């Protein structure tokens, strides 16, 4: 097993996964010595029932909760100042974010704003005991609408991308009662999680602990994503997918943004295809390109994908090709039930020849990495 001889890894996120996980919400807040959370959610994304489920978790506690559930898909500039006022006027001391994407971004950014605001008022200045620049505890209630970014130390704010270890939530709750989601969101989030996990697995610099998380995420995705789409054991399988996303987010936080991530972002301006679909499209081509230099490394993916027996029984020279084939088989299986199918080529993703030429040209200009251009060309 290859491992980097020089790495640093930290994942402060605690994961509580399974039946009645939400029942532990009040006690987890107590463990962080907080008792007045502000709950953030998107009513139109997840509906009223999941939000009410989270509120109900506090019924028998003596905690008071504040709530704002009107967060839209795009964070408006006026949102954060308004939430800051709500947080401060409500005497809140912690945050609970339900779901992912804009809701979690808003929660993370608000957390920074609260800390900056507190520092300017010189509140809590004792060093080493959570001084003015320490963030309030942020608790994540995961839903199938997420994609793993919520578990990372990244946040999108209106002006750009924030990155800091303290942005990671303190605890993630993955409870089957929260597992209802639209098929497209589930697949998109699952594919983003899978791509992140695979790229983190292949990033030697990330270290063995990140790789262990990536291994777990890949196994969970490969096992539960087809089941979740097929409707088998729905809450359980969705919990598996969401757990895989969260764990993939932990691995991704320690790795460098991978090729699929970069290419999907590059193409986002040209297509309305969800990002997860784009990353999934590039992933087999990325593996094919990587296996030209190090086929063994790509072959190692077979272990989390299929398990110990199949990995051991596959000839070494066939492990990398088989890992790539397994991905295509996964997409085929998912496409049997998907209304919006995962494309296997960029041309079949609705991009015109002109768009592809333009995107490829921009890539060649912006990137000195031939591998990136090669993978893009393969995927056309």
């Amino acid at each position: 097993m290859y491992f980097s001889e020089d790495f640093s890894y930290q994942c402060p996120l605690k994961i509580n996964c399974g039946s009645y996980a939400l029942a532990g919400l009040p006690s987890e807040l107590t463990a962080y010595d907080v008792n007045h959370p502000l709950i953030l959610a998107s009513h139109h994304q997840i509906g009223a029932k999941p939000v009410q489920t989270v509120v109900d978790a506090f019924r028998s506690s003596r905690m008071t909760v504040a709530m704002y559930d009107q967060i839209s898909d795009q964070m408006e500039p006026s949102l954060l100042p308004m939430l800051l006022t709500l947080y401060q006027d409500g005497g809140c001391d912690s945050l609970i974010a339900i779901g992912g994407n804009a809701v979690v971004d808003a929660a993370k950014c608000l957390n920074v704003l609260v800390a900056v605001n507190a520092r300017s008022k010189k509140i809590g200045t004792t060093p080493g005991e959570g001084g003015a620049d320490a963030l309030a505890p942020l608790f994540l209630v995961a839903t199938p609408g997420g994609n793993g970014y919520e578990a990372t130390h990244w946040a999108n704010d209106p002006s750009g991308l924030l990155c800091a270890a303290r942005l990671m939530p303190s605890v993630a709750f993955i409870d089957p009662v929260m597992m209802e989601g639209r098929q497209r969101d589930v697949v998109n989030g699952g594919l983003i999680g899978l791509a992140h996990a695979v790229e983190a697995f292949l990033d030697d610099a990330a270290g063995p602990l990140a790789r262990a998380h990536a291994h777990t995420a890949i196994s969970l995705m490969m096992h539960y994503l087809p089941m979740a789409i097929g409707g088998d054991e729905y809450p359980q399988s969705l919990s598996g997918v969401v757990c895989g996303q969260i764990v993939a987010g932990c691995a991704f936080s320690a790795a460098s943004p991978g090729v699929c991530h970069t290419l999907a972002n590059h193409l986002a301006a040209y297509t309305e295809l969800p990002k997860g679909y784009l990353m999934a499209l590039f992933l087999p081509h990325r593996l094919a390109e990587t296996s030209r230099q190090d086929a063994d490394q790509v072959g190692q993916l077979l272990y989390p994908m299929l398990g110990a027996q199949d990995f051991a029984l596959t000839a070494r020279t066939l492990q990398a090709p088989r890992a790539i084939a397994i991905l295509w088989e996964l997409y085929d299986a998912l496409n049997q039930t998907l209304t919006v199918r995962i494309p296997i080529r960029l041309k079949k993703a609705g991009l015109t020849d002109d768009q592809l030429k333009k995107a490829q040209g921009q890539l060649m200009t912006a990137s000195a990495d031939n591998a990136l251009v090669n993978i893009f060309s393969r995927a056309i």
Partner: protein
Amino acid sequence: MHLPGYFEFCCPVQIIAGHRAIDNLPALLKKRHVRKPMLVTDQGVLGARLVDVVTAAISQSVAIGQVVDDIPSDPDLETVRRIARCYRKNDCDGLVAVGGGSVMDAAKGANLLVSEKKDDLLWLAGSGHLKRPLRPLFTIPTTAGTGSEVTQVAVITDHDRHVKLPFASRYLMPDAAVLDSRMTLTLPPPVTAATAMDALTHAIEAFTCLAKNPISDAHALFAIELIRENLIAVLNDADDAKGRLALAVAASLAGVAFSNSMVGLVHALGHATGAVCGVPHGNCMAVLLPYGLEYNMHKNGHLTAQLLLPLAGPRIVAQTPTHLRARQVISVIRRMNQSLHRITNRQHARCFSEITGADGLCQVSIEKIDHIADIAMRDGALLYNPEELDHDDLVMVMSNAWSGTPLDMGRIKKGKLQIR
């Protein structure tokens, strides 16, 4: 892949690894506002001049409050109280533990006392008592190892009652663990072997016992693979820095695994044997591991079988029929013990009868087995063992482990609990 009905996973410890990882220590101390740390270590580490590496790295940036360098193996309540008194007397604001599991457990115990402003550890024994973070604690392991540098448990001996007291809380986890290959380069072969088997046992019990979860499983598998790939090589070449680092990382991976999924029979008996007879923990683990797997095989053999890949490699898996893989795992471990016994010139014990004290007598006498079983019956680790055990079962396992003979599978109790 099975998702448990409910599980929790947590390891917020910052892990820094490298051939000069200790050079990062000043920045770590600064980040957590530590200006006057207390160093906790033992005479062995001091004699090997490993503390000098640490003090050289940090003396330019902090004032070292005090160095406590006489931590015994299996620290007891009085040792922990003494460290706490020293911490308070010197106005320290953080702890740096440089040593093996005993030093780290002592540092964790002392951190409990100074942070909670108490003098008595007993009321903190068990879990769920801590409600807030402790003082900053940094761990630099000099063995590979107990994994204590990343775990949420500490074990302190109560000599009066001949028991080992467990303390469990996520607040016991250190702020950072620094894995530096220089810290284990001088580790003697028998200690290298025993501590590696300790790490292996952590990983294996984490994977095969009742509280396993998918995330701790992956950590356990990687730990086992790293130990398999590097242990013998390191014993044959003590200066193999890359191998030493790999074993240190393996020990931490195993620590993360078992800290989040607990252990079982092997640790229950190992704790008791250590408490009653003073046998080092790693030696107990090495001896008992194959017996624990044998005892539980009818319940979790399908899980044990999955360990053959990281333990022996794909070729052995391909050559072993599926229904024999669990047995093969046990055989591989026995052969591993045999190899370690040979490479260390018979200093690594394969059974308890081979462990002798300074007086040349067997350290685990047959007469003490009954008492060991009594103590083990009260060990919380048994709760997570896949198969139930009573006093007679424990005596049977210990008797076989004493003589080095495999268990008689016909005598193993088969309870009704089904394991998925």
